[in-house]
């Protein structure tokens, strides 16, 4: 099953006013590896025409990207007020 279809099975309470993860575009622009795009299991990090695109809305809060990024671009916080992923099984 495509990752997009797998993600569509999930429930989120998206916080439209707060992105719990942010990246620094100037760092990502010169990044030699873009390892985040391979490590993130929720495909939040993608390359569009060679440029890194990040969306926090699909994040499953696994914590991988902040360790995966070796260039200190990722700032990781927990979503606030029960926002974010809501697993039924876990």
């Amino acid at each position, binding site marked *: *099953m495509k*990752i997009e279809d*797998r*993600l569509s*099975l*999930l429930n989120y309470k998206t916080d439209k006013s707060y992105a719990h993860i942010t990246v620094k575009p100037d760092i990502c622009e010169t990044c030699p*590896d873009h*390892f985040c*795009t*391979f*490590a*993130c*299991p*929720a*495909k939040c990090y993608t390359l569009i025409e060679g440029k890194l695109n990040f969306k926090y809305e699909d994040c*499953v*809060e*696994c*914590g*991988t990207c*902040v*360790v*995966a990024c070796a260039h200190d671009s990722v700032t*990781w*916080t*927990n*979503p*606030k*007020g*029960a926002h*974010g*992923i*809501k*697993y*039924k*099984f*876990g």
Partner: protein
Amino acid sequence: MSEFDAIVVGAGPAGASAAIRLASSKKNVLLVEKSDPPGSKNVSGGVLWGNGLSAIIPDWEKSAPVERFVDTKSVAFLTQDSKIGIDFSSKKLEQKKTGYTVLRARLDQWLARKAKEAGAMVINGITVEKLHIENGKVTGIEQDGDVITSDTVILCEGANPRVAINSGLRKPLTDHDVAIGVKEVIKLPENTINERFHLKSGAGFACEYVLGYLKGGVEAGGFLYTNKDSISVGIVVSMSHLRKNDATHTYDMIEEFTAHPYIAPLLQGGEMQEYSAHMVQEGGFSSIPKLYGNGYMIAGDSAGFSFSNGLVLQGMNYAIDSGIAAADTFAAAYDKKNFTENALKSYQDRLEGSYVMKDMRSFKGIGDVTWSPFVHKKIPAMLESLMMGLFMEEGRPKKHMTRMLLDALSQNDMLRVSSLMDAYRMMRRM
């Protein structure tokens, strides 16, 4: 005067166990959980090994939302074409139940309810940002500028301990400390699972796999556990090995596993109910931070207490027992009204005296073995050629088994000194 005797951050197995223990001894305890309901952000494989919960919830097995007790435990190597494994099924595992498959969204919610019933105040949907620290002593938690005070804070945040890191109590995690776990829950009728895995009603199958065939040569482990009417299936890949072979997406790797010729039939006809992922603490002994200080203790995954030797993956048992140890340490400190680093030092002693730190110490360095080309490439290839040798019938005279083993070893380059050293290291560390 603090508002609470103790605040526990995180309502997973570690935090809920600590809160239940504290509330049971009439301490005024607050259990704070960021998800609502508790457990709805938590992921584990997951088999809950051991009977640690009996110390705080007698007869827990009767009321806990467990899926199945494990009566068949397997380990297997997978190559492109083959599965070479060992199955252990035993009446003994039915009599003495040692592992239960669980789904964390259900288990953790139940544990939080138990904490509430025991007298803890449980609040959900509150994200603790950092600890409140005054004059070098942790005196509470902070959220959105609000402070809630307590004599001690027990941090049980799980595998991604943001509060501990933000408060400077733990170094940021590195490649060495973590692996990435990716999982799918596949729905199948209870009877189909029983028939497919040869299980009696209520009994379950749990298998860990060494995956030596993934694209890009990435070394990963797989797991497959039966729930009541679903199957939990997934992979665990170490961050450093994924980085070395940075050509594969983690979300594709799990598909490579579930498409394997001897895994796919087990899932056939099933409907995917959930996709999930979480970091896994993998660093073992060398990833364990300082576990206590003035006014705080760290337990469970936040403390790096998880274990994998390729045969089993364990973490929830360590979480429960370290949570209980932290609660007992607090109770002793409470009697003396002293919550300084010195007073909480006995947390370390308690853990050292239990299997928690003993396991961490005796399996120090196991990661070098479990994540090695020796285990992931050479052993599976050697076993495959040995099995083919043993079971092929080509109308030619048969060789003795010792000869065949030697042939299989030499075909796979395993009679070299370096391979013998790898084998020796593996035997020693396992």
